[in-house]
């Protein structure tokens, strides 16, 4: 039984639904079958003690826009790439910025930052005082080196 709880709408007056992480895939499939064929946006939010993942779904036929939320304590969320192809790059970006592992993603790599970057910039505990550069070693692999300066 998939549990989908409706929450009070946000300030933009869009419907918000909350699902458990385990129910995410069946819940998303049921939304897809209801006509939400456009996954507009995936957002990860670092709530310090947990990570919240927000999906914005849109239906071209019904012209409706809804928000689906789930949360995770161990930084892993099932991937929805099997339902919407646009989830591919969005999930890679959220992995890149927040370190969320999307289980079942076919090619989970960093997308905007270089492969050797250390840390996840949109985490609240990311250390902005460190200045890092990514260099390439003799084998062609990236690695990060740190500048001892003051930083930001």
């Amino acid at each position, binding site marked *: 039984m998939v549990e989908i709880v409706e929450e009070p709408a*946000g*300030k*933009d007056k*869009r419907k918000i639904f909350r699902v458990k992480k385990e129910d995410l895939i069946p819940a998303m499939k049921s939304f897809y079958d209801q006509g939400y*064929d*456009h*996954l*507009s*946006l995936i*957002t990860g*939010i*670092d709530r310090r003690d947990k990570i919240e993942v*927000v999906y*914005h779904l849109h239906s*071209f036929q019904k*012209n409706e*826009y809804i*928000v689906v939320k789930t949360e995770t304590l161990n930084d892993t969320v099932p991937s929805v790439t099997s339902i*919407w*192809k*646009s989830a*591919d*790059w969005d999930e890679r*970006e959220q992995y890149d*910025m927040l370190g969320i592992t999307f289980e079942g993603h076919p090619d989970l790599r960093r*997308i*905007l*930052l*270089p492969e050797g970057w250390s840390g996840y*910039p*949109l985490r609240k505990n*990311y250390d902005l005082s460190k200045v890092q550069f990514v260099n390439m070693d003799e084998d062609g692999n990236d690695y990060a080196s740190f500048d001892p300066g003051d930083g930001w």
Partner: protein
Amino acid sequence: METTKPVNKYVELNMGPQHPSTHGVLRLKLLLDGETVKRVEPVIGYLHRNAEKICELDYYCDSLLYFDRMDYVNSLSMEAGFLEAAEKLLGIEPPERAKWIRTIMAELSRIASHLVWAGAYGLDLGMLTPFFYVFDLREQLLNIFTEASGSRLLTNYMSIGGVYQDFNDKIIYMIKDFINSFPKKLEEVFNLFVKNDIFISRTKGIGILEKDVAISYGVTGPMLRGSGVDYDVRKAEPYLMYDKVNFDIPVSYAKDCLGRFLVRYEEMRQSVKIVKQAINKIPDGPYFNPKAKKSLMIRLRGEGEAYGRTESSKGEFGVYLVGDGTVKPYRVRVRSPTFKNLSVLRELGKDVMIADLVAISGSIDLVFGEVDR
């Protein structure tokens, strides 16, 4: 006798990031069979500045600056997109005059963006002449932006609760002058394109994007309308004053590069139509909400969440803001249309010639400030 057999049939080729046809810093990893592309993988991030993080560290009103720098040829639409979300979150409603001014400026900005695209697309396909014509037309628009805001590209014209300064008679005269002369000049430029056999043969039937593929990849904007989906945020969820003006949504059922070109051309003419109506409808009154005057601007607090979406020249531009009750946003997330539109290049770039790949990637209308943010 032994004959030497080719060890590997395919050749890997790196294209960009410093290639003139990649509109900035797009890098493509190609797998080639002769001159046919078997697989293409876009590599992005060379212009990444992490605007989302910078916005988290700044006041709401300061975040606006970074939105100018995302789509730098269409900065006024970007500002309208951010304010759509920010004003919902902060609970500040701009006065009607400001909304009309924003509508006009966003549409002029859309024209400027499409003009740059048309010129650059001509360059991609080996046509140098239209480039000079469109930049001459765009210069008139930049003069209007300069008169209104003081700067040409990164205008920072709109602000929370209104606009930075009011329209004066000179700006209104300049805009009227522009919209009267523009359609005729645009048609001249249009003829340079469509009466050129080389342009037609290089775009017609090239880069077919099917409707279901486009929807699955989250493609929006002229790319989606070029694939036969009649969808525009300005009609679907009207913001600013778009429900008070008459205009049409151009749709092409050809699904190819030429179709996308024609959609953008018609959009420019529709934008002129919108501006023509809007310029006569601007009411008198204040141009900013006194709740957000300059001295109070940094004290604005937002709590909750809001998602605002607008139609930029590239597609659906969405901003998702989460506030925690302080003067700075807790999380800023940008739905960049070109980021999604570029991801479909992996589908479009299968089994095409390298020269066609340039035509296809040009037709996406890439601006890397926005893809990489």
